[in-house]
């Protein structure tokens, strides 16, 4: 046990030693761990430094990226601005006036404007700062150079310039600016019509083409058109400007502008009209000359229209005669005659008017007119006398002095005659009536009219168509051949179909035909007693017709001796007094289709300006 005890004692001592050794070892290890900790602290410090460098590098990289993004954005903005110079001209105070358009999406800032004097030798250049003048996307900026901003630069009227606008982004727009004095323009003149009658208006179309492809006209242009006549200037040889051409017109490159002017030309036949057209301040030698000519006008041109927009140096006649011409010895008379019109600008004097009837038969007993004593109608005209110097010849002669017809006026020469007779009392279906007027402008004849004559075997209607002051009136006191109206005013007309012979009929259903001249508008029937429904029929040429049938026979006995269609119309606008013809005609039969009726009554509408 003692051994064991010692042994135990020994073993106890070893255990203590081992414990101490372990404790020492632990202490050693603890010291060794302390140095690791120290080392680790240093490593951490190094790592922190490295991490800072990495973070710095990343931040710097981010800055570079941001800068690149900004740069790209700026570049995109530059690509998105699209400026152009839309218009360039020079103001009256010789200032440049430009319009710059930005058709891009991004706003543009105008930095500078460069103006190069291309005419100077050597060329000179001027630069002006525009102080970042903004032009929003899809917007424009006007008055650059003149007011916003005003540049201290005066444009010369004889100098070619190149103008360049530069934006802050570096984009630019260039335009070349040429003054009229330095740019020859293509000019063409048209004289319409090239041949005119005296007193007629002539239109000059002056076409100016800006065919420059690389330059803009610096200013608006105004035409200079002159008309000269080859005759000696006098009141009857003159040109008067009626419509002036436009002025201050801008002609963009590649376009043509038509300047229209109208002249009234007076002159003798054969006169040459020379039109010289150019532009104010045009390049010397840049003009065009076109010629026209005054010719005589054939009466055929005016016979039918009788629209005296132009002058004819001769009298005109509009006639009235009955058809058929019947009656017996009852004393009935119908209306014959003519309205003499003076379409000239001078006064006309009428000395004589002759009505002649021509029978197709060689029978001296055919007495068409002047088989009784003519009955003058008051104021148609007021002076002179009607007589029958020979069978079938009725004549009006002046009294102490001729009848005066002022310019653009008309005078009726109407008379009542009757009692026709024929050889063998035969009817004559067709005979010619001739009209002659003798004036101080010469003698003028109107032919081509035709009528039917009932022989003396029995009563037959005398059918006339005329205008009257009253409805359904046969009274000569109410006859009216010339009706005056002011332009744009309403005129009221009583168009009458009359039978001067009682007891014989114009058959029911016969029609009064009224042809209202062109340009008269708003034609309205206001009364048509004795006729079926009357409706005006307008035609594409501007004229209007009223044709209405009698509801009952025109028996020559009141109220069926004269039936009237009353209508109103608005007179057209005129630039000077014009004479229009109102045709009163008829269609139908008399006495149960014995004759075809066809009276002619040509009345005058005289339209004045005021």
């Amino acid at each position, binding site marked *: 046990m003692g051994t064991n005890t010692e042994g135990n004692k020994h073993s106890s001592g070893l255990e203590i030693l081992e414990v101490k050794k372990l404790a020492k070892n632990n202490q050693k290890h603890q010291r*060794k761990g302390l140095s690791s900790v120290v080392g680790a602290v240093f490593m951490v410090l190094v790592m922190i430094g490295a991490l800072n460098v990495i973070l710095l590098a990343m931040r710097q990289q981010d800055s*570079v990226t941001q800068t690149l993004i900004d740069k790209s954005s700026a570049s995109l903005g530059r690509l998105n601005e699209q400026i152009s110079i839309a218009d360039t001209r020079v103001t009256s105070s010789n200032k440049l006036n430009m319009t710059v358009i930005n058709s891009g999406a991004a706003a543009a800032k105008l930095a500078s404007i460069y103006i190069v004097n291309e005419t100077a030798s050597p060329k000179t250049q001027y630069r002006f700062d525009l102080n970042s003048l903004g032009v929003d996307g899809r917007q424009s900026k006007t008055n650059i150079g003149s007011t916003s901003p005003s540049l201290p630069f005066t444009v010369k009227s004889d100098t070619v310039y190149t103008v360049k606008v530069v934006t802050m982004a570096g984009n630019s727009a260039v335009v070349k600016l040429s003054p009229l004095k330095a740019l020859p323009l293509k000019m063409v003149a048209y004289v319409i019509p090239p041949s005119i009658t005296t007193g007629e208006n002539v239109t000059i179309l002056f076409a100016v083409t800006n065919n420059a492809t690389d330059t803009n006209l610096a200013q608006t242009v105004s035409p200079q058109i002159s008309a000269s006549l080859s005759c000696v200037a006098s009141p009857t040889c003159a040109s008067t400007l009626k419509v002036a051409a436009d002025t201050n017109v801008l002609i963009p490159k590649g376009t043509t502008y038509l300047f229209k002017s109208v002249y009234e030309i007076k002159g003798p036949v054969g006169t040459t009209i020379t039109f010289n057209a150019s532009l104010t301040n045009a390049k010397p030698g840049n003009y065009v000359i076109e010629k026209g000519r005054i010719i005589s006008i054939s009466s055929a041109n005016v016979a039918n229209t009788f629209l005296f927009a132009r002058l004819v140096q001769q009298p005109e006649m509009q006639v009235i005669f009955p058809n058929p011409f019947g009656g017996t010895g009852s004393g009935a008379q119908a209306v014959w005659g003519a309205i003499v019109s003076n379409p000239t600008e001078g006064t006309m004097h009428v000395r004589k008017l002759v009505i002649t009837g021509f029978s197709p038969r060689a029978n001296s007993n055919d007495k068409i007119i002047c088989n009784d004593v003519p009955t003058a109608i008051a104021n148609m005209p007021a002076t002179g006398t009607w007589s029958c110097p020979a069978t079938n010849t009725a004549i009006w002669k002046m009294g102490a002095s001729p009848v005066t017809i002022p310019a653009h006026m008309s005078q009726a020469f109407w008379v009542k005659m009757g009692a026709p007779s024929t050889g063998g009392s035969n009817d004559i279906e067709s005979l010619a009536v001739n009209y002659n007027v003798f004036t101080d402008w010469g003698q003028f004849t109107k032919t081509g009219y035709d009528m039917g004559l009932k022989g003396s075997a029995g009563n037959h209607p005398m059918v006339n168509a005329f205008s009257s002051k009253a409805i359904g009136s046969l009274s000569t006191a109410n006859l009216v051949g010339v009706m005056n109206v002011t332009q744009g005013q309403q005129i009221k007309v009583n168009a009458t179909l009359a039978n001067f012979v009682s007891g014989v009929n114009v058959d029911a259903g016969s029609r009064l035909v009224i042809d209202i001249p062109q340009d008269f508008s708003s034609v309205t029937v206001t009364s048509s007693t004795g006729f079926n429904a009357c409706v005006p029929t307008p035609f594409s040429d501007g004229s209007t017709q009223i044709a209405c049938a009698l509801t009952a026979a025109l028996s020559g006995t009141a109220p069926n001796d004269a039936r009237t269609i009353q209508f109103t119309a608005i007179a057209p606008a005129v630039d000077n007094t014009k004479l229009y013809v109102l045709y009163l005609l008829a269609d139908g039969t008399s006495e149960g289709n014995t004759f075809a009726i066809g009276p002619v009554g040509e009345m005058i509408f005289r339209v004045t300006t005021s």
Partner: protein
Amino acid sequence: MSNIVSALLMIVAAGIIGTFLVVWANSSFAFQSAQITNQTASRINLVKESFVVEDVWFYSSSGNKMSVTIRNTGDLAITISKIYVNNTSVWSTGQVISRGSVVTIPPIAVSSTLGNVQNVWVQTQRGTNIHQDWKY
């Protein structure tokens, strides 16, 4: 005792080495940071540099001459270092253009024929280049 001494020696050694390492590393990192910063600033300035050649005006005055109008549209002042015409250096005087201002560099003698198209190359000190064709 020896253990203590050795332990102290270990700690001291570790401290010295660690300190040296940290100092060296910081120095190296600082150098790298400065390099990165400078390089980045330089590149950013290069990118930010922006100018426009507004006009090149050719004229004759004691020989063929040209003047170049340049507008600095960037946020930094720039220095125009060289101008070349058709890849031939014609000007290298140097011209500083402050931010937002415009400068015309005259006169530069050139050997060109009227009507010819000239390639004008403008270079800044930072290395930005603009090549443009202008008609003499």
